């Protein structure tokens, strides 16, 4: 199965083309704001590298978050457009799942971290199993302090992976059962791998069901503070 995977949910953007287990081309860049400009040149590069044409694509895999809102939307819009044009199904993947899958671990429980800004992180616990990881609790957005509390309450030896560098200094200080490790960001190769196994299990949603996972209500400030509810009829 020929898979196009798109990853733009964090500061690190990447594209991967994979055929079954084999990654045939990748492109990546770390840039918090350059998702929109990265995507099509990266597609061009990878398809030239692999000798594929768009019509070869049998599955489009895309990271739908949590992460950077604009990046998620740029990646999803790109995935929807390409999938629609070539008639391929589209499978959404959670950023945290992709981070956890690439965690180098023996038996430690894994906590994956993705920066979502506004002094919050997205976190989720995973358990290593032969050939991968399984989700082992709820995915949530929380403050660094709340994350620390979750780790303190976790009885197991823990490996924290993902963008733990985005946490304020000292957040993990003094937690002796905790180790930190790589990867820092999700990568498209992992997105491809997760999506392919889902597709093989028949877990392919209708494209309208593929939506960003913001996990946060929109900020509804419209800068009219001076004008709000001033009217006598308001």
């Amino acid at each position: 199965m020929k898979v196009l995977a798109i990853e733009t949910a964090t500061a690190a953007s990447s594209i991967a083309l994979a055929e079954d287990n084999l990654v045939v081309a990748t492109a990546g860049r770390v840039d918090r704001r350059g998702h929109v400009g990265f995507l099509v040149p990266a597609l061009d590069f990878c398809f030239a590298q692999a000798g594929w044409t768009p019509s070869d694509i049998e599955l489009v895999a895309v990271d739908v978050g949590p992460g950077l809102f604009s990046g998620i939307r740029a990646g999803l819009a790109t995935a929807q457009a390409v999938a629609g044009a070539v008639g391929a199904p589209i499978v959404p993947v959670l950023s945290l799942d992709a981070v956890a899958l690439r965690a180098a671990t023996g038996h430690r429980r894994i906590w994956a971290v993705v920066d979502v800004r506004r002094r919050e992180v997205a976190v989720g616990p995973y358990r290593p199993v032969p050939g991968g990881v399984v989700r082992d609790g709820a995915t949530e957005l929380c403050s660094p302090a709340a994350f620390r509390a979750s780790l303190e309450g976790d009885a197991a030896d823990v490996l924290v992976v993902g963008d733990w560098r985005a946490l304020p200094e000292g957040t993990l200080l003094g937690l002796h059962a905790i180790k930190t490790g790589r990867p820092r960001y999700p990568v498209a190769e992992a997105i491809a791998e997760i999506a392919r196994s889902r597709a093989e299990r028949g877990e392919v949603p209708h494209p309208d069901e593929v939506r960003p996972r913001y996990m946060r209500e929109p900020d509804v400030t419209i800068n009219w503070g001076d004008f709000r509810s001033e009217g006598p009829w308001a």
Partner: protein
Amino acid sequence: MKRAPLILGFETSCDETGVAVVRGSTVLSNVLATQVDEHARFGGVVPEVAARAHVEAIRSLSHRALRDAGVHSMDLDAVAATRGPGLAGALMVGFSYGKALAWALDIPFIGVDHMEGHLFAPRFENPEYGPPAVVLLASGGHSEIVHLRRWGDYEVLGATIDDAAGEAFDKLARFLGLGFPGGPAIDREAETGDPAAVAFPRALADRPLDLSFSGLKTAVTTYVRSHHEAGDLPPMADLAAAIQEAIVDVLVTKTMNAVAATGVPAVGGGGGVLANRRLRQRLAEECAGAGVALHLPSAELCTDNGAMIAAAAAFRLGRGEVTSPDAEVDSSMRLGA
């Protein structure tokens, strides 16, 4: 003669997701998902809400636009999307979608200046419209008077120095409790009102081509508060009519000043505010009086839409101007700059 290119245009700069298929001056389909209800709760356009709604709507709208036009994506000659100006997060959705679609179909992609799109919109319904002309562009996000010298050669003669005209409608409608969006709400309320009931000020008389609406906002709120306390507030319809008249009067006066300054034989218009009935009526009267032609799009093509983006893209494509694959959106893009 070579057939005009078939272009799919996306517009996602603000709160309307617009997709259209255009060939030459023919609109083959023009579909829109308006977010008015979502923003009405907040009384204005919320950028993050807008961006979220675009990404939910764009896939199915894109398919519907092609279906309504009776064309297959393989038939397209190019894809276009608004590059700016507008809300960055909202722009990114249509721009990313359009760019990726063009890539997958192996056809050119054209990122379009939203304002240039508005300049092209009157052409669909007014075949004789074209340069030289003065074009009034007014919406919730922009208000300017443009000298259309030639296609591709535009001079912004005047612009608002504070609020956009549509923003003034929105804020004042909100103040009066008339709801969002303010333009249509005030237009409706003003129907039975007397525009001369209150003489609100007309700003910037000394700058014949520039616009300003924040003074009106202050004048209205001050007037309403004091007369509300005194218990002699005029009926809502009169207030709405007087506010509408003040905004319309400024827009019309400055547009006609621009006509006099440039000597052009025609006036065009675009942007949601140009759907206002009183504005259209006053422009018609003034243009007739001055002996210049008036070319306004129907209300449907005044508001943001994908067809105008496709039309501007056709012009750019004809000049061989396509957008680089690594282009980003430009939320502060400026016409003619």
